[in-house]
């Protein structure tokens, strides 16, 4: 499953569902893919929060250290494919959401998203599960 930036932020701020999801995914041996662009957006949001607590950051760091979590890099080839995927959409450029959509398309996986509309705006065919409470 591919995660968007809002899911990662939720893991820091209000982790009821995301912490449970991380736990159950590990129990089931499910790989969770974090696109680097989404992770960058998450860190921007987290550091922009005045009241981000240390425990939340520690939670995200441990999550990223899971042997089942894969951070997909944003290399030259991926950057080109993201641009091609988003081209033609009448939206403000949204690289993090496009990276999520591309990762889903490439693998045939679903996304878990706190902001599902952003992923669907890039690719309406991607299956997106909405994080409860977002």
């Amino acid at each position, binding site marked *: *499953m591919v995660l968007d930036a809002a899911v990662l932020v939720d893991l820091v701020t209000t*982790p*009821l*569902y995301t*912490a*449970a*999801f*991380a*736990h*159950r*995914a*590990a*129990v*089931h*041996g*499910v*790989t969770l*893919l974090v696109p680097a662009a989404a992770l960058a957006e998450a860190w921007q949001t987290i550091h922009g929060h005045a009241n981000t607590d240390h*425990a939340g950051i*520690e*939670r995200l760091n*441990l*999550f990223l*250290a*899971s*042997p*089942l979590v*894969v951070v*997909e890099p944003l290399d030259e080839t991926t950057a080109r494919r993201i641009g091609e995927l988003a081209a033609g959409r009448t939206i403000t450029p949204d690289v993090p959401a496009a990276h999520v959509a591309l990762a889903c398309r490439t*693998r*045939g*996986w*679903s996304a*878990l998203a706190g902001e599902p509309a952003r992923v669907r705006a890039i690719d309406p065919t991607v*299956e997106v*599960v909405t994080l*409860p409470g977002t």
Partner: protein
Amino acid sequence: MADSTRSGRTRKVTITLPTEAVEALEQARAAGTIPSVSEYVAETVCARLDRERWLAEWRKLTGEPDPKAAAWADQVIAKHCLPGRMRKAS
């Protein structure tokens, strides 16, 4: 998390596996899909141990998951993470 698969030290042990699994492993070795049965089993066991270690740390940090949230997560995983989709991304 530390990678426990490559300490370099090994010890010979006898384990019991289902016949079908042994046959599948021997076929995979013969076909060159896996380097050896021992190596495959060792990597699989070490990966599982890494997962269990991580889960122990996660439990220590976050506690047991909320039952309602865990039920939701199980439902999502069952629907969207079918066995064919549970592969480790490259």
